[in-house]
């Protein structure tokens, strides 16, 4: 083992019933290095991480750590003991305890019972890592980013040599991400090896030193960051040359039916109890528009109000120029509105139910309580959309929870498409899913629009919105502050409007 190596995995194999998830994968990590682990969903990243952290036991292969050849890791506890710590996308700490308690709980060195010492120790660590939190503060009162950092601080303090960050940035805003990166660089300089799993290409190029790419459970290669331009990275992940992402808008002609341009949905002074100011909004037949703004600006709250997901407390809503009452999701569905929610896990999937049941759910509810589909009909629906959206699943009977994130999202999309809505609302449909699926979804949106569906699209990634939307409603501080269309839909103009007239660039 090289001097500088802190972790070396060789020929890792892992199979699940019916799937070979990892085939002879090698992975190595140096001291003081940030190493990106990249791959599409289902490429084997999660499995590799889980093998390393003892959640899964490997079928074959060897793992060596600095100073210890061929170690066996059978449980997360084993992993921790050899110095491997993990921080997951979801915060796994206790929100009702203090920061210090969260850092030391379950570590059995008596510190948790000596309050004063514990708080002092915690403060010392927090200061050394420059984390803006106080030891005695309740964790829930910190922002998500700080909570994330506390989780990292906890991991680091446990004498960790290898720190795994599994999608830590997906629920953070830009400034928070910056803070996190600073912390990562600090740790790097202290000699910690960091494995960074993310879908954000920008972030990879901002902080990482090397990249390991996996595809279909096999190793594609390991590259120094300077040797691998973005386009090539994407190509390696997808295993093919990439479509030019910026050009998908032109592929589909705009909808050109007789009723093109007719108002499909219209809201006047709509307001919900989720704390947004009354807003006006409309969408035309075959149009793709979007809400944009910073995280927390009220984008999601607007579409939730449209769908009746939050309690509507004021305003008027029209479908095809006729006033309708939408006070709950079912009302919206009856009016042909579909809504793919922002948080797939909390609001989207029904985890233990099969892919089939998840696909038919919305249409089934719309059809009625006393008219269940026959098994054969449900199966036919499911198969149709599994094929249409290229959903990777063992069968329609597989529980949706065991699918990868991108495929789960496709199932939810299938659920709403099966309903054949007139108006489809997609709230962050591409979050946390792989590049290939992202492009698929964007293409699909444009294709649906060209067939006459109206789509409202929300994404944190502005270029995604620019590529798909012909009109953007800009939000700031929970109210609409502008509307952009045509050539105004560009990066600079959007920034300008979000910031309030003062151009950033």
């Amino acid at each position, binding site marked *: 083992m090289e001097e500088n190596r802190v972790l070396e995995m060789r020929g890792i194999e892992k199979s699940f019933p019916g799937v070979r998830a990892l085939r002879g994968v090698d992975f190595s990590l140096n001291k003081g290095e940030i190493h990106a682990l990249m791959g599409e969903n289902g490429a084997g990243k999660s499995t590799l991480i889980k093998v390393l952290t003892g959640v899964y036991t490997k079928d074959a292969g060897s793992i060596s750590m600095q100073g210890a050849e061929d170690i066996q890791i059978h449980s997360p506890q084993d992993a921790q003991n050899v110095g491997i710590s993990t921080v997951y996308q979801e915060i796994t700490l206790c929100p009702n305890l203090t920061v210090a308690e969260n850092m030391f709980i379950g570590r059995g060195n008596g510190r948790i019972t000596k309050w004063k010492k514990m708080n002092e120790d915690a403060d010392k660590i927090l200061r050394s890592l420059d984390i803006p939190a106080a030891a005695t503060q309740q964790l829930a009162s910190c922002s998500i980013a700080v909570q994330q950092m506390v989780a990292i601080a906890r991991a680091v303090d446990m004498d960790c040599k290898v720190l795994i960050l599994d999608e830590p940035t997906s629920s953070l805003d830009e400034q928070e991400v910056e803070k996190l990166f600073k912390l990562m660089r600090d740790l790097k300089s202290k000699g910690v090896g960091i494995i960074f799993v993310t879908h954000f290409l920008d972030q990879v190029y901002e902080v990482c030193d090397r990249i390991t790419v996996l595809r279909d459970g096999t190793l594609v290669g390991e590259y120094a960051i300077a040797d691998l331009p973005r386009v090539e990275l994407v190509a390696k992940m997808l295993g093919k040359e990439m479509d030019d992402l910026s050009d998908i808008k032109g592929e589909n002609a705009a909808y050109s039916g007789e009723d093109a341009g007719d108002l499909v949905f219209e809201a006047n002074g709509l307001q919900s109890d989720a704390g947004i100011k009354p807003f006006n909004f409309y969408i035309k037949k075959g149009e793709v528009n979007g809400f944009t703004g910073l995280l927390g600006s009220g984008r999601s709250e607007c579409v939730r109000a449209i769908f009746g997901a939050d309690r509507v407390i004021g305003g008027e809503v029209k479908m095809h120029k006729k006033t309708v009452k939408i006070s709950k999701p079912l009302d919206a569905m009856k009016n042909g509105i579909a809504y793919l*929610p922002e948080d797939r896990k*909390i609001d989207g999937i029904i985890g233990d139910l099969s892919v089939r049941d998840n696909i038919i759910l919305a249409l089934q509810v719309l059809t009625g309580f006393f008219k269940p589909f026959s098994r054969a009909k449900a199966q036919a629906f499911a198969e149709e959309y599994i094929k249409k959206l290229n959903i990777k699943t063992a069968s329609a009977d597989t529980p949706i929870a065991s699918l990868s994130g991108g495929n789960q999202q496709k199932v939810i999309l299938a659920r709403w498409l099966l309903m054949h809505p007139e108006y489809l609302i997609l709230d962050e449909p591409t979050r946390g899913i792989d590049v290939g699926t992202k492009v698929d979804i964007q293409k699909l949106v444009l294709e649906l629009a060209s067939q006459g569906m109206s789509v409202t699209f929300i994404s944190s990634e502005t270029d995604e919105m620019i590529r798909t939307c012909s009109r953007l409603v800009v939000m700031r501080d929970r109210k609409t502050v502008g509307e952009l269309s045509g050539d105004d839909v560009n990066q600079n103009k959007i920034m300008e409007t979000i910031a309030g007239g003062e151009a950033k660039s």
Partner: protein
Amino acid sequence: MKKIDLKKLLSNQLLIPFTAIIILCIVNIIYDCVNTDAAFFAIETKTNNSGFTVFSGPLITILDNGSELAILAIGMTLVTAASGGQDISVGATIAIAGSAMLRVLCGGNTRPETLAAPIIVGFLVACIVGMLCGAFNGLLVSVFRIQPMIATLILFTAGRSIAAWINNNELPIVPDPKFAYFGSFIPGIPIPTTVFIAAACIIVAALLLKFTNLGLYTQAVGINESSSRLNGINPTAIKFISFIILGLCVAVAALIKVSRLSTINYSVIAKDIEMDAILAVALGGNALSGGKFNMWASILGAYIIQFLTTTLYRFQVDSSALPAYKAVVVIILVVFSSPVVRDKLSSLSNKKKALKKGVA
């Protein structure tokens, strides 16, 4: 071919209940071999004291006495699936529904000469009372979002006193021998009436699951309430309905219980039956935290509990020790259905497969 079957079998929810039944059968057969005059599977005909021919034997006893529990298991499964919690008031609400039925049938008399109201009216009143109790529990759980066990603790505690109060603490006795048919035999029919009642309830449940979306909605709500709401399901209503259905099951169980003796004893009627009903759901391999469910497995679980009880009575096990035996069974089943053991089992079968492949 066989290998696939094995794997499917291992992952099947009905595996554990069926295994339990097979084991109980084997234990009984062994007992029969030792005691030559006993015959577990024998069903013979007897003439009962009303002069009619009826079937008799341990199997009939199990089917007969397991009926109430099987009926309750239907409702308890739905409540568990939808709310992720259990109703611990079913024993007490059986007392309430039964008491209300007696009050109507006896018209407030302790020893009436004739029925004060037709039996069907008494039963309908019991249904209404049962559903009201269910509605009370359901309201607390679905609208006020109180944990099911805590919400139902109220009726669990107060129920038997309420039952006693309904009849002024008297113990009325139903004079009409026809009323006793529900808990014993209808003249001329050799199979216990309870078997028909349970079968009817099971069929109704099956139809309900087949011809409505109750199953899908209940599971969806139990697994992910927020998501269900965004798909147009009303989780509050679904939870409420599950408690109402359990209330109906309670009323039917109350009819059987009261009919068995034509009277009621408020403090001991259906005592501890809530725990058995919950156990039935668990024996069926259903998660007590809600979500996916298998109704048939729960019903099977109910009969297994009765099977076990009857077996232990057969062996002359001290009846005060019955709960201890039940506990042992629970431990075994819970361990066997735990994910850890299941994983081990399936990996074992995988290894076997690999081994066979290697040999070939």
